[in-house]
């Protein structure tokens, strides 16, 4: 009888061909999917070509030009071209061109490319998003991506797991973003370093897939290797019609060992913001003194899904963006964009005086579509508020949910949704 294992340990054991694994063990695991974007793929392709002339499986590689696209300058166009030509040469099945793409971590779950029990690496730190569907998924660099494209496997150190026990239900205007920011505020930006965050408890059932994707997405912001959710009826409902292949969900064994347990009562959470320049600087919105803002970003791999836009639309409906604020709304994929058009959200945003952009990572990493000048301040539904992240080294990013971001756009200062709605 194998030892009682956590979700991550069980997935690793299955992919390493072992009956059991334990924390600290070094393993080599088979990969179900390897992902890259327009920043990380070009160096990976260069290294890949030193190793091999053929990818291990053309169906198990996903290439998404999402960071600096539609291309912001000549150099980024060259990088996208490198990736596009590689995709053609290798006959990569899942290459997503501009106009058919999305922000990678919105796109892959939506298109059914990630499934429970799978092992996924991506040359993008927010690859951990797919833990929301019960997969092991983690970010790596370009060299790991290169070697994985050649061999279909990579090495891992099995992480110890932290159990995050969720109880209760979220109240109105509180969402997954508030859950994950609260968690990061509790444990710090290295609170789960080298470790797995495994979500559990009765509160999980009350979280939508959008909430879960947001929470897993920001596991890296606590330093975690991955952030994984149990597979339940909500997951299965989401996967139906998306994932067409067979998959094997895992559940944590009774008696699995966790190095610590953190309990969060969802009922007690309130809308929060993370102050510059670390995601751990979390404060309730209600405690924020008058803080004027210049820009609002709603979108990103963290909060670019249709339910996120629905929250924002509910706030913006019939209101105007404050005269001192530029509000930029970025649907996370073409499907999300189309849905937002059909549901009337885009009309609400445009009438409110906001910009609605094509899907792109753009401003989140200070790439394009909303770069800030010296001394400017944004409320953003993105994932990082590091120094200089969205532009000038002396600009500031406050991280928040779509509801808080939209309310702040209307009032021109950091504000809670209940002040507007």
């Amino acid at each position, binding site marked *: 009888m194998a030892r009682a294992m956590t979700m991550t340990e069980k997935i690793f054991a299955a992919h390493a061909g072992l009956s059991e694994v334990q924390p600290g063990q070094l393993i080599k695991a088979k990969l179900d999917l390897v992902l890259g974007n327009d920043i990380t793929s070009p160096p990976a392709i260069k290294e890949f070509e030193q190793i091999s002339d053929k990818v291990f499986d053309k169906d198990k590689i996903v290439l998404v030009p999402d960071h600096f696209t539609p291309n912001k300058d000549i150099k980024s166009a060259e990088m996208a071209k490198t990736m596009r030509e590689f995709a053609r040469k290798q006959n990569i099945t899942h290459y997503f061109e501009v106009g058919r793409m999305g922000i990678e971590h919105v796109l892959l779950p939506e298109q059914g490319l990630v499934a429970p029990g799978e092992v996924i690496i991506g040359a993008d730190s927010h690859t951990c998003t797919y833990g929301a569907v019960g997969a092991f998924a983690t970010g790596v660099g370009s060299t790991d991506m290169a070697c994985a494209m050649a061999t279909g496997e990579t090495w891992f150190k099995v992480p110890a797991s932290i159990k995050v026990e969720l109880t209760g239900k979220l109240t109105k205007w509180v969402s997954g973003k508030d859950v994950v920011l609260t968690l990061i505020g509790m444990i710090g930006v290295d609170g789960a*370093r080298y470790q797995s965050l495994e979500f559990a408890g009765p509160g999980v059932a009350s979280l939508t897939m959008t909430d879960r994707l947001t929470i897993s997405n920001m596991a890296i912001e606590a330093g975690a290797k991955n952030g994984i959710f149990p597979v339940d009826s909500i997951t299965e409902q989401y996967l139906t019609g998306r994932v067409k292949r067979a998959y094997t969900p895992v559940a944590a064994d009774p008696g699995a060992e966790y190095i610590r347990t953190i309990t969060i009562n969802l009922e007690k959470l309130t809308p929060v913001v993370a102050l510059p320049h670390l995601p751990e600087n979390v404060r309730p919105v209600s405690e924020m003194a008058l803080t004027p803002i210049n820009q609002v970003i709603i979108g990103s791999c963290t909060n670019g899904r249709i339910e996120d836009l629905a929250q924002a639309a509910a706030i913006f409906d019939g209101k105007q963006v404050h005269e001192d604020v530029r509000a930029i709304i970025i649907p996370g994929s073409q499907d999300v964009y189309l849905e937002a058009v059909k549901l009337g959200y885009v009309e609400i945003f445009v009438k409110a005086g906001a910009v609605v952009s094509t899907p792109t990572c753009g401003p989140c990493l200070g790439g394009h579509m909303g770069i800030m000048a010296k001394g400017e301040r944004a409320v953003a539904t993105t994932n990082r508020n590091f120094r200089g992240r969205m532009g000038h080294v002396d600009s500031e990013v406050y991280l928040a949910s779509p509801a808080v971001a939209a309310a702040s756009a209307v009032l021109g200062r950091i504000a809670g949704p209940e002040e507007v709605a």
Partner: protein
Amino acid sequence: MRFTGKVWRYGDNVDTDVIIPARYLNTADMKELALHAMEDIDPTFAGKVKEGDMIVAGKNFGCGSSREHAPGALKAAGVACVVAESFARIFYRNAINIGLPLIELGEGDINIKAGDMLAVDLAAGQAENLASGEKFAIPALPGFIQDIAQAGGLVPYTQQLLAKKK
């Protein structure tokens, strides 16, 4: 491999956005990126860093983005190794994969100041702060991570593995 270099000293949570800001990532030319290394935390670094210098930092060095351009830019700037209380995991992987030596000392006060000269002997697993005379052990890399480091990175290591399979 023994080398001696001058220390650049930084604090906790040095993130990959300050190691190499994304506004420069429209190229993957590490020499070009090296001109902007550490720019948002220390505008003097790129102009003054010398081949063989070392970075010494607090906990969670390299947190944030998975951009391999971060260790790549430091390596291309001439940084011989990074010493820290702890490293963020993707940065740690990336540095090993591209052959940039890292020394993880564990959390606690590191008695090394900016400008100190540090002598590092990776093979012997020992380092010495020549300014204070203080010596400290370099923890050995586990298992095949050692092999990757010794091969000079993951690409040469994978080339060797694939050659063996043929």
